[in-house]
């Protein structure tokens, strides 16, 4: 079991938990958190290189490093792991955000130890989710990732934290109730009559034994279930409140990684396993996600709380992820994964910066701040860079992701239109394109009000710029954002393999 490298993505966090349990002071806690997340980052980068080497050597299996260990035989529950390029991208994203999140919560108070315990537990769930290919263990890790959120927000949050924590948890739990129904339904149709059932994704996809009628029922279940976490309209309202109340590292991890669980699950489970329903029912969710994209952006335009702005912007960007996934063609889906990576990094950057600014000014209301560029130039410049990434400046990650999505969705839309299958995809693609303008509006509005102009509050003049750990956190994220933006083809080719017709049935259907 321990010869499989993937297991260590769960083992290391568990070791970190054990290590944290015996920590005596904050220095040791920091050491454990940073060492562990560095180890995870190194592991995921090594995995990436090894994976590429394997692919270059001609491996064509959809998932590599697969391994299966029986857990509960009567119900065919296994601990099954395996990764492809997308999972690896997500693992890298998660580990980087965990690393930078640890730096961002350098001085978290009170109950530092407990905070990190829950944070690491949450990331255990995240890593476990991304390496699992067994639906049951996947779901289990999913829940492991959700629950700590309640405590993290409820205890270490700010503002209306009890309400937000409760709302977030209840809505996500409601989503996972749908999800569980869907997964169990999939399980009972996972194999043709007479053969043993299975939870294993790859086998289910291979069997393709879910009848079309059941797909119509199970697809919405799973898509909505994951879609709630992906902040799909109208199930997104946990996101603004939740993010606004969460402490910095939790916002980072939540917007950066947890929301990606939703998008990842949507294509890995809903679309991968139920291609016919995905093809037929995509239009419903296309409308919803298309609305999310512009709706989130418009909402962000008039918010005054920094975190709300960013949360609505996340709704918009994550809507774009689901939107692109539903286009069901290689380019758009590749773009969706790029967008997940890109949004993960840049929203983490945003939340880190907002946390740092909030930690100094003790307000997040943009009407009560101004001219921070003069006071804390480093943070302000980073904020501008994050904003530029968000509004899709070439050279940063947002641009490549959005453009890939737009090119792919436009292709899908035009193909539909020319084939006389209605112009829904086309219309919503163009509507989604409009979001690049609206994004520019709200990003520049914040930048203008918050960072530029005269200093609003005299008291802010005494504030200091970023400390070294804050600089580390933001610089790492900026480097990643720029790396994706400057060398997108590397990531595209990493992702694209999975979205080939031979692996992803639904793409072949178009």
């Amino acid at each position, binding site marked *: 079991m321990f010869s499989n490298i993937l297991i260590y993505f769960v083992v290391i966090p568990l070791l970190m938990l054990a290590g944290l349990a015996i920590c005596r002071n904050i220095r040791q806690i920091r050491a454990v958190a940073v060492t562990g997340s560095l180890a995870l980052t190194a592991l995921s980068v090594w995995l990436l290189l090894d994976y590429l080497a394997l692919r270059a050597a001609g491996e064509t299996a959809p998932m590599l490093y697969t391994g299966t260990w029986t857990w509960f035989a009567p119900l065919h529950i296994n601990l099954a792991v395996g990764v492809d390029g997308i999972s690896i991208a997500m693992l890298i994203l998660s580990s980087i955000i965990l690393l930078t999140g640890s730096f961002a919560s350098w001085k978290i108070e009170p109950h530092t130890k407990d905070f990190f315990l829950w944070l690491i537990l949450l990331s255990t769930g995240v890593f476990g989710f991304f390496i699992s290919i067994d639906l049951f263990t996947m779901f289990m890790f999913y829940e492991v990732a959700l629950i700590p959120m309640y405590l993290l927000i409820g205890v270490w949050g700010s503002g209306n934290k009890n309400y937000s924590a409760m709302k977030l948890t*209840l809505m996500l739990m409601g989503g996972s109730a749908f999800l569980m129904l869907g997964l169990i339904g999939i399980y009972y149709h996972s194999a043709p009559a007479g053969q043993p059932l299975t939870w294993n994704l790859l086998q289910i996809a291979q069997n393709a034994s879910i009848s079309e009628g059941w797909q119509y029922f199970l697809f919405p279940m799973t898509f909505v279930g994951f879609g709630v976490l992906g902040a799909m309209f109208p199930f997104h309202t946990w996101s603004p409140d939740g993010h606004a109340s969460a402490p910095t590292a939790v916002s980072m991890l939540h917007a950066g990684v947890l929301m990606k669980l939703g998008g990842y699950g949507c294509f890995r489970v809903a679309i991968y396993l139920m291609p016919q329903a995905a093809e037929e029912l995509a239009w419903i969710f296309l409308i919803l996600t298309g609305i999310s994209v512009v709706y989130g952006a418009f909402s962000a335009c008039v*918010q005054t709380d920094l975190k709300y702005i960013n949360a609505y912007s996340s709704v918009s960007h994550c809507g774009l992820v689901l939107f692109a996934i539903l286009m069901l063609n290689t380019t758009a889906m590749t773009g969706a994964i790029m967008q997940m990576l890109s949004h993960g990094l840049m929203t983490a950057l945003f939340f880190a910066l907002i946390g740092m600014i909030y930690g100094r000014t003790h307000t997040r209301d943009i009407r009560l701040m101004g001219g921070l560029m003069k006071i804390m130039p480093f943070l302000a410049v980073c904020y501008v860079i994050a904003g530029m990434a968000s509004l899709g*400046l070439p050279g940063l990650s947002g641009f490549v992701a959005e453009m890939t999505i737009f*090119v792919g969705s436009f292709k899908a839309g035009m193909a539909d239109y*020319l084939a006389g299958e209605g112009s829904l995809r086309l219309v919503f693609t163009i509507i989604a*394109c409009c979001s690049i303008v609206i994004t520019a509006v709200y990003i520049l509005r914040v930048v203008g009000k918050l960072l530029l*102009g005269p200093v609003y509050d005299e008291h802010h003049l005494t504030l200091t710029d970023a400390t070294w750990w804050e600089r580390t956190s933001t610089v790492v994220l900026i480097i990643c954002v720029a790396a994706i933006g400057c060398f997108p083809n590397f990531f595209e080719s990493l992702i694209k393999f999975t979205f080939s017709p031979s692996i992803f049935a639904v793409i072949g259907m178009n």
Partner: protein
Amino acid sequence: MDITLPLLILVIPLFMFLLLGLCGMKMSHRLAGTLGTLGMGTVLVLSYITALTYFYSGAPEFITQAGERLQYTVFNVTWLQFTDSLVIRLGFLLDPISAMMLIVIPTISFMVHLYSLGYMRDHHGVYEHGFQRFYAFLSLFSFSMLGLVVATNIFQMYIFWELVGASSYLLIGFYYKKPSAVSASKKAFIVTRFADLGFLIGILILSFYTGTFNFADLTSAPVDGIANVSQVSLTTAEGIKAMFTNSPAPMFMGASVMTWALVLIFMGGMGKSAMMPLHIWLPDAMEGPTPVSALIHAATMVVAGVYLVARLFPLYLMETAALDIIVVVGALTAFYAAMVACTQIDIKRVLAFSTISQIAFMMVSLGVARPEFHHGLGYMAGMFHLFTHAMFKALLFLCAGALIHAIGSNDYTAMHGLRKYMPITHITFLIGCLAIAGIIPFAGFFSKDEILTACFGHSIVWYIWMSLVAGLTAFYMFRLYYLIFWWKEHKVHDPHHAPHDQPWTMTLPLVILAAISCVAGFVPFGFLVTWNGKPMFEGHASFFTNLEHLDWSVAGISLAVAIIAILIATAMYKKENPLPEKMRNALPRLWDWCYHRFYWDELYQFITHKIIFGCICKPIAWFDRHIIDGAMDGLAYVTNKASVAIKGFQSGKIQMYVWFYLAGALLLGAITVICLI
């Protein structure tokens, strides 16, 4: 051709940006400025070598035996692969227009770098706050603009298009403590972003039908996903047109899809080139430092739209409907901007509107160009005007910068009578005015004359219209000139603190640009830059080619118009007199409208604030908070109420519990009994 030089042209400014951006704060101001200027100087030399090699080396990859110029892709690296054929490559394309831009951009950029060394410090020699940042941004801009012009495919162009937009944003907002600069930069970015939306959708349509982004493929023979075309002759684009017309849905809402695509792409150009109605950002962009206005908002970035249309010109020729739209938009903008320029009191605004008007000239010129008439004279004229305009408009802006630096104000009302104090500035400004007014032999005369000839060939109406605008141009430029340098100064300047010419770093660029403005008109553009690469005239190019090929009937009229306009301006503005006041009172409404720029800004203000913010964003935010959130909260509320309602059962009275329990058991028992027995 060796790829080192072209690569360095792009890499040096980028490296300078990173160097100055990351380490600038650690350097002294002087070092940062010198480094930036030296870097740009190197780029200047390299691009001159590249461009001149292209034009004059006669190498077979650049020019055929018949004298036809070819497109040459120096390098083309895959950057992002969407599908097998839709690939974004980063490359370096050499053809007549990009080679021409390789001369324009580094020239102006270098002048501005040099000029800023003097401009960005006050009279006591203290550097402005953020001096290093300024040079970093200038380098970023130069990099983006160079990348834009040498783009090998339309998506590369879009990438750098966005980057120039961003650097423009950063530079307009350079004085970030000034709220007006902040909002101007914001406005510039958002308006151009909106235009880019059209550009993007246009690219998507075009690339969907044609299956390629490459200019080489788009503007040449039919393609199906040819990759890496390094050498294609500039022939027709019928194949592309066929791809549209053969598709199942060639028409959309009354126009062909290709027209839509081209018009949408032109919309991007309208945004960047400040065509009406997307021009509103440019006058506000004058909040940036004046050298920036000279570089970005007069000479280079704002002509990107023109460059874009020129780049895709063979496609536009396939759809003349799109060209007609360009003509109409351009002509209206030219007239509008000229009218407004006549009334402004801020000298930079006058120049800004003048820029809008002149760019519109170029647009019109491209719009009226047809191969049938003088071998596509309009195309050549537009490019020619782009070239000359860049020189003399940069000159004018830099002069304005010198004035502002000396006086400390943008209003001409604070200037008056400066000719005695700042002779060099005076002379160079006058040369600039003569050039833009179209007085022989200055640069503007030739290019504007070609444009008017092209208009004449297209339609007499546009010819008259554009001649009128040309007259207005001469009028408002000389109005400005007289108001600044003549009149009587309001106050007697103290001899020690009187305005004076600026240090050499600022005057040298003025002199150089003035010299260029004097001679640029003689560049034989007809041999160098034509729409299909073939020379327009027989024979060999010489210094007097342009003079020889002048159509004196048109040229004579335009010269006469310009001189009359200058005379009127002289009469009205040379000395302080009541004529302007009288004219203003005669047409108060018109003057008001012009002065307020026909209330475009107010209209936009209304649309964005009242309609978009007030009627879309706020209601959506409200909807989110109260309906969607309300529904979720309502669900929680109902659950809560329901549980409160039933918690009365948990009274703590054990006997009631037992009673209910037993009653329930009994009920079950009763049911069992009834059912079973």
